[in-house]
């Protein structure tokens, strides 16, 4: 009896701990929905999501420009950051001599440890004036945010892609080389396709990081609520909308910010599940 109990005890404890982390997720979801859903219902889903005007003092709550903002800045970060990240991971996994690799790896991990506000500061001092002086516009822009976000997602993309390349069975590479392929041919036509699902996962996590980032982009995007006409225009994202206004918002305005959170939640879930279906479909082929 006692022994049976002891046998089961560790399992129960782990279950409770696992449950607590899941329940936090549930609590957050419920909380945001309870706080934000009423105003979406009042304004109407279509008017809220596709509305062009955000003027809380006049009771206008349209967040479409911010959805565009979040997506465009994230897209920019992915376009700039993912190719660099994947190339870097290939270099580390396949080409770098051991000593160089031992230098690069901790450096890249350090990149992940820099607080986002510091990234914002750096972007504000270097990237924004650069764009203003050489490319035009106010400098505070989609481009500035994308560049800094691209750097911020690098550690995620690099380390996960690298791990997925290193995790391949050595037989793939040896088999490819024994067929008379060069090293690069083996990487391109055997190893990268085989590591594809891991690399896609790296990109998904990178997207998650980029779309959820708040502090750095508040400092770099200019935060104007309007549809941009070029990548040099300022913009506001869903996260920055919450970050900027939550400090003083009350009543309906406050609810609208929670509703913004709901939309952010949904956007992230849509992105994640699309990416996962892509991975699955590729695997089934």
């Amino acid at each position, binding site marked *: 009896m006692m022994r049976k109990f002891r046998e089961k005890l560790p399992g129960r404890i782990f279950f409770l701990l696992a449950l607590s982390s899941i329940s936090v997720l549930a609590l957050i979801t419920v909380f945001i929905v309870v706080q934000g859903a009423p105003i979406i219902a009042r304004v109407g889903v279509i008017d809220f999501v596709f509305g062009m005007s955000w003027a809380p003092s006049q009771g206008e709550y349209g967040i479409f420009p911010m959805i565009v903002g979040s997506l465009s800045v994230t897209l920019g970060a992915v376009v700039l950051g993912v190719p660099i990240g994947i190339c870097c991971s290939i270099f580390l996994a396949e080409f770098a001599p*051991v000593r160089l690799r031992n230098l690069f790896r901790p450096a890249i991990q350090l990149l992940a440890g820099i607080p986002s506000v510091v990234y914002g500061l750096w972007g504000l001092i270097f990237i924004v004036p650069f764009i203003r002086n050489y490319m035009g516009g106010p400098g505070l822009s989609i481009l500035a945010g994308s560049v800094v976000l691209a750097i911020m997602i690098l550690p995620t993309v690099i380390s996960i892609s690298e791990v997925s390349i290193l995790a391949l*069975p050595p*037989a*793939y590479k*040896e*088999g*490819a*080389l*024994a*067929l*008379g*392929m*060069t090293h690069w*041919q083996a990487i391109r*036509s*055997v190893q990268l*396709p*085989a590591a594809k699902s891991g690399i896609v996962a790296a990109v998904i996590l990178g997207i998650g990081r980029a779309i959820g980032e708040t502090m750095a982009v508040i400092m770099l995007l200019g935060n104007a609520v309007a549809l941009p006409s070029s990548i040099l225009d300022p913009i506001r994202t869903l996260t920055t909308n919450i970050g900027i206004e939550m400090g003083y918002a009350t009543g309906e305005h406050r609810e609208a910010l929670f509703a913004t959170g709901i939309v952010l939640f949904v956007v992230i879930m849509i992105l994640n599940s699309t990416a996962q279906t892509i991975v699955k479909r590729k695997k089934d*082929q």
Partner: protein
Amino acid sequence: MKQGNTKISIRDYQFFYGEKQALFDINLDIRANEILSVLGPANSGITTLLRSLNRLCDLIPKVRMQGDILVDGESIYAPHVVVTELRRRLGMVFDVPSPLPMTIFDNIAFGPRLHGKKNRQRLADTVEQSLRMAALWEDVKDRLHMPAMSLSGGQQQRLCIARVLALQPEVILLDRPCSGLDPISTSKIEDSLQLLKKRFTIVIAPHNVQQATRISDSAAFMLMGRLIEVGVGDDLFANPRDKRTSDYITGRYG
């Protein structure tokens, strides 16, 4: 090329992994169109020797070699030798079946495509011939466009043999190709080796002495990185000259 010509000649070959010496003074002639078995217990340097022949060992950092290996009388370390071409001429099959993550057809067409064959009909012919030679055609002719991973272990290994054949090599190196396979798959592979030796020179590390006696035209015994004895025909098994050889083939160790 008729039987009896020396295809590969290994001269005073030594191999080092960093400070550790893995092969000592190997001298061995491998004749064309025969099956040579290289046997010995684990860690005898057999894999290192096989991988030296197609210079796959070069890729490991900090290795060093002395002596020479000649294929058709020409050193494989000569400066004008193109390593990828050498690896095409000396095809290799590994102990773990290693189909590439693509379809059966593409696995085999891969090598020829890489070396410049693009014509569809010719590729299809090459694929069929290679699969027939590896005794796999009947198993897979209706599902050439299925992933190679969907094959059984024995079929995967025959696929790997077919993949090597498609490159029209001169020598086939097999490193314990049947170690993970069931007896039926093993005998199918052994049967196809008997057919293949008419066209190719075959060097195999068999996975046990029984297999070696079944398939080989000559046999070499290695121990701790040294070549102990070489025998033609069943000589090595019938009249081993060295006590260590007889201990091994009678199953005293290994």
